[in-house]
């Protein structure tokens, strides 16, 4: 394959270097496998990565993308072949490792960025190449699929340094030659390659048109886009013409072909039909592109534009928010919910709907193939108590021995610990102190200290426990609200 235009060696070098850099993520995946959990020495992660690209592109040919489940299925034979005894969950983990590597999950799906040096006008200039290989996209039915980017398709098809348009023309020329010379097996392989090219070209154009629909201010329509659309229309017209010619040639050959050749020619014809269908759809899209632009211009021109640029959420909002006092952020909690959660229709109680549901006849249960075992039950002779009588006695003793100015709960717990009481007893002590909160005669008096409790077994507010008052005959005081933060035990 010769270069289509005379490049200087510097330009060709830069082009080939950029092409080489796009394979870097795959090589990195393989190189880092020894640092991963488990022994991956029997697996070639490069092969797995290419298989992911292959399966993804195959699904894209049908107009969608590949689901995760499909990709896991596609990788299974390769993984099992290398390590048949690998457990199913480890297989899934390995497959996800490869897929996430191609998505650049560890950098939160940002573009891969590879630094390189290019020679420009006699000087070495350092640049960075940014690209994605795979992306996850949402479909209108809510499912999420994996799709390959044009760079990913280009990498997979191996024609890294050539424009997809040139590669398509080259593939068709080779296909025509192979067909004329009766090399049908090679022709099928070339036709598949041509199909991949058409998918790559579709992605390239669709991405460009989508950018236009998203924000027309990012494109200069008359200077950049119109000439590109014109060139693309010509390219597709030429592809369609050649593809139809190839199809005619195949149909002529089918008439006199033997059974094996007929099968191969039918396969070629089917692959060409796929390419023709894709190019026709692209052609329609290109024909509508100008109208789309005018519509978007009308729509977007009157869309209110933000005068303030978007903030960096981490540095400009979250970080300063963490510095703010609790009361300020708490006061804004409702608004934060409104801003970051979707609006939702408030549920409305419908009495008639409830009545209908309650009165609806019970659905018949299907035959149950589950055998129900009668549970083993035993008669309880007495109620199991949480705390022993000794615990109750000891806590009563502690609470009756309080000094006149009281003790904090933290001190009481420390005393109990020093006396080598059980944890269960201290739990009972805390419960009794909490029970005394509502100030009933005969019980200790409990007040909040306004400081957190410092104890290894319990957390919450610290409380001041004072000796109880003697019972009075007058009306009991009204219940006061419980401490804001309940004292509760930490993990057992």
């Amino acid at each position, binding site marked *: 394959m010769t270069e289509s235009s005379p490049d200087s060696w510097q330009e060709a070098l830069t082009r080939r270097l950029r092409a080489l850099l796009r394979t870097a993520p795959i090589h990195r995946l393989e190189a880092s496998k020894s640092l991963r959990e488990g022994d991956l020495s029997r697996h070639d992660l490069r092969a797995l990565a290419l298989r992911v690209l292959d399966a993804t592109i195959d699904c894209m040919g049908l107009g969608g993308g590949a689901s995760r489940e499909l990709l896991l299925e596609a990788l299974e034979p390769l993984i099992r072949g290398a390590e048949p005894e690998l457990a199913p969950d480890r297989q899934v983990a390995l497959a996800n490792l490869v897929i996430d590597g191609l998505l650049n999950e560890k950098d939160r799906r940002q573009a891969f960025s590879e630094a390189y040096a290019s020679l420009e006008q006699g000087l070495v200039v350092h640049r960075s190449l940014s690209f994605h290989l795979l992306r996850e996209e949402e479909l209108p039915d*809510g499912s*999420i699929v994996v799709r390959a980017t044009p760079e990913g398709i280009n990498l997979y098809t191996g024609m890294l340094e050539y424009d997809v348009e040139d590669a398509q023309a080259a593939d068709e020329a080779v296909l025509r030659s192979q067909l004329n010379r009766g090399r049908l097996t090679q022709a099928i392989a070339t036709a598949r390659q041509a199909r991949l090219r058409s998918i790559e070209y579709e992605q390239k154009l669709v991405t460009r048109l989508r950018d236009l629909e998203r924000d027309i201010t990012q494109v200069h329509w008359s200077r950049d886009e119109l000439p590109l659309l014109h060139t693309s229309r010509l390219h597709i017209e030429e592809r369609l013409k050649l593809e139809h010619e190839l199809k005619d040639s195949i149909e002529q050959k089918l008439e006199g072909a033997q059974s094996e050749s007929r099968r191969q020619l039918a396969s070629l014809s089917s692959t060409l039909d796929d390419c023709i269908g894709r190019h026709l759809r692209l052609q329609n899209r290109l024909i509508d592109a100008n109208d789309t632009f005018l519509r978007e211009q009308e729509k977007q021109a009157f869309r209110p534009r933000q005068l303030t640029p978007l*903030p960096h959420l981490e540095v400009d909002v*979250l970080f300063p928010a*963490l510095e703010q006092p609790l009361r300020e952020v708490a006061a804004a909690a409702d608004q934060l919910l409104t801003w970051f*959660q979707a*609006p939702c229709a408030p549920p409305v109680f419908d009495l008639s709907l409830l009545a209908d549901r309650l009165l609806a006849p019970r659905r018949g249960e299907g035959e149950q193939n589950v055998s129900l075992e009668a549970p083993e039950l035993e008669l309880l002779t007495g109620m199991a108590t949480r705390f022993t009588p000794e615990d109750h006695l000891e806590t009563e003793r502690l609470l009756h021995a309080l000094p006149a100015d009281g003790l904090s709960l933290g001190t009481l717990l420390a005393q109990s610990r020093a006396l080598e009481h059980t944890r269960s007893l201290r739990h009972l002590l805390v419960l009794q102190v909490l029970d005394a909160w509502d100030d009933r005669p005969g019980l200790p008096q409990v007040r909040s200290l306004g400081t957190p409790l410092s104890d290894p077994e319990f957390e919450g507010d610290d409380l001041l426990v004072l000796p109880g008052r003697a019972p009075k005959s007058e009306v009991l005081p009204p219940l006061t609200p419980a401490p804001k933060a309940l004292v509760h035990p930490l993990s057992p």
Partner: protein
Amino acid sequence: MIRPEELNALMGMSEDAGRLLAFALTPKARPSLPTYAELLKRYQSDVSLQILTEGLARGLGLRVLEVGPLGMVLGAQDDSPFALRLADYRQNLSSEDRMVHGLIQLAIAAWCFPTAQALEDSSRSVITLSAPQVVQYLRDLALKLKAQAEQDPEIASPELREAWRVVLALPEIRETPDSRRSAGTLKGMVQYALEQLEKNGMLKRSQDETGETYRTLSAYRVQVRELGALSSFRWIQETRRRCPDFILSGS
């Protein structure tokens, strides 16, 4: 005087506008539904339907944030009956809990879209996240602030404690005896927020073995980009103006 046929056309269009808003407010409704797809297509080409729908939305305290092949995304004004309130979200919250729940909404958005470029780059629409990742992220930021604070100040009232102190004081996880997560822990709160986002059509739970990984849908990016980011930025600027002493440097 409106002619009967004009009135009929107006009624029909009002009904369509209402139906479109109803679809947008139904998290499970997707543009793969033929009626919804048809209405979206009409909305994009019929200016009258656009004006009617947007007017109806405004009356309901809603704003049309974006309309595209993935559906219509609405945002609520602060006083809209459709705005999600903390009282509907979680009940009986202390002041600390309110603060943390609000902060978590911001943390999830910042984790997914930390920079303005990340918000604008719609090719990165699907981001994966999980509760442990967001918890770690929030704690790491709080620890950075702790490292910057030279000493613990004497705070007269708990309400004046900085938010990062409250975040660090919260336990990350606590298993309950029946292995449920505890709602009072940071992980429990983050997990709850993710579940609410999933329920409201902003995230999608992954079908992996843990069931704890989520993927963002395009509606979430639109919500954050068109409403959350600037509104929260304005709020923080206003708060900093009112509380300059809390711009930390050992204060």
